[in-house]
């Protein structure tokens, strides 16, 4: 328990819980809307925003947020009517975003920060200001999902029917991609942009077998994500390992255990 006395550890725990709750809720919507690959593209392209923020001397969160939201808007515009071309656009934006980031970091004079922290997370380096940003995003996500739950449920389950009933499916699709982009940005601190997809999909996958409603799936997924994050943090502290990787492996172990348990129930 002495680890809780350290401020950096307190920040890490709060950040882990806040990000897990956001990732669990938005991750559920991403999975049921089959937007996992698209979110992967947004996550990797966020490196472009990080590179530009470093080059122009802007706060990393701000640079990455603006860039990824712009990417999300672009992808929403490109893919809403042409879902069959999604893979091509996503692959393109995935690679171009990362290339932009690499070039801007190359152009930054004397820059020698550990880039690995953006790729695999650095939860122990979370600042107070980061926590405010994470808390604000959680509030926005909770309000949006709660207030427009019925619209989100309809477009996720049957977007053609939702459109026929007069629900503006395009606007909700764009909103979902923007929230996914912001979730990716806050999750970069915790697990890094490469591992963020796992935090958004593994708890969701487990929760999908244990809920009969989308709302239940989101809540359960958020709780699972928080549990795996805390377990991963403990493993990271105990064995001096990279926190992001520990969190993802804790989630993967949870998934394997849950699958085995489900198989044993069937047998």
């Amino acid at each position, binding site marked *: 328990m002495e680890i809780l006395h350290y401020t950096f550890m307190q920040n890490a725990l709060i950040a882990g819980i806040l990000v897990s709750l956001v990732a669990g809720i938005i991750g559920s919507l991403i999975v*049921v809307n089959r937007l996992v690959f698209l979110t992967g593209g947004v996550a990797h392209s966020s490196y472009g925003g990080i590179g530009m923020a470093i080059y122009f001397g802007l706060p990393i969160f701000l640079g990455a947020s603006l860039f990824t939201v712009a990417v999300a808007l672009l992808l929403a515009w490109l893919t809403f009517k042409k879902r069959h071309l999604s893979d091509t656009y996503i692959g393109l934006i995935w690679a171009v975003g990362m290339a932009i980031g690499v070039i801007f970091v190359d152009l930054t004079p004397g820059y020698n920060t550990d880039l690995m922290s953006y790729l695999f997370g650095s939860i122990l380096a979370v600042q107070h200001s980061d926590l405010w940003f994470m808390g604000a995003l959680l509030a926005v996500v909770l309000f949006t999902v709660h207030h*427009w*739950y*019925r619209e989100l449920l309809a477009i996720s*389950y049957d977007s053609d029917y*939702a459109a026929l*009933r007069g629900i503006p499916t395009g606007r909700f699709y764009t909103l979902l991609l923007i929230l996914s982009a912001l979730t990716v940005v806050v999750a970069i601190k915790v697990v890094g942009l490469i591992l963020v997809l796992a935090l958004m999909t593994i708890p969701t996958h487990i929760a999908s077998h244990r809920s009969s409603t989308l709302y239940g799936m989101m809540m359960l997924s958020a709780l699972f994500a928080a549990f795996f994050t805390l377990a991963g943090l403990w493993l990271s502290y105990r064995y001096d390992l990279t926190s992001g990787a520990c969190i993802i492996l804790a989630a993967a172990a949870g998934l394997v255990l849950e699958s085995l348990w489900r198989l044993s129930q069937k047998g």
Partner: protein
Amino acid sequence: MNVLRVENLRFAYDREPVLQGVNLEVDAHEFVAVIGPNGGGKSTLLKLIMGELLPDEGSITVLGKSPRQAREAIGYVPQNTNVNLDFPIRVLDVVMMGNPKQHREAANWWERLFPVRYNSVEKRCAYTTLQKVGMEAYLDRRIGELSGGQRQRVMIARALCAHPKLLILDEPTSSIDIEGQKQIYALLKELSRDLTVLVVSHDLSVITEYADKAVYINRSSYTHDLRRSPIHLQQPEGEHFCEIELMQMLAEKTCDCEHHAGKKEKH
């Protein structure tokens, strides 16, 4: 007044028209079967009737209004194959789907705070609608646990919940066993006492046993009044053979219609 009136309709995705010279009149409480070969324009016609596409020439009116103005009066049941069986959603959620605006208008401030919950009026509406399709006992069941026929009944209940005047079904019995198909068509026949039913189907029993009119669509249209001259299939051995035979017969009549229409235009 006709519930649905299609006059001299022409529609093309590119240069080559998918539909040309299509005419159709559907009166209240009629049960109309739309048949025709794949690629003949059946699905395009449905999209035009529902206002998803706009005609290049001619007109479509639903209850005297344009399809987009009459959107609230149209109920739609998609193909059975479009359902995501892994989606965590209950029968109750599916039936109540697509009415968020009505919920906000009817709910009090407390109910509006919790859109996830259904109020007693909504639950009663869902229950009585499910009763009409014989699925009231499954209100809280997950949709993925139901059989194909049961799922399709739920989809019909969802469309009925919005109190449509015109119910459109796109191949509602695909991937459902023969007994289930019969039950669905018998249900639709019963529902046509209260509303108008338009069903796209490859199943010939709908024409021989249930429908009041058969509309053959293969770029142009031919309407056959089954109440005046019922169609009896003489070849019970192979369903596929019978379908081809029937299509040929209706196609010949369509050609006759086109020929007469051409003569009229010349005069």
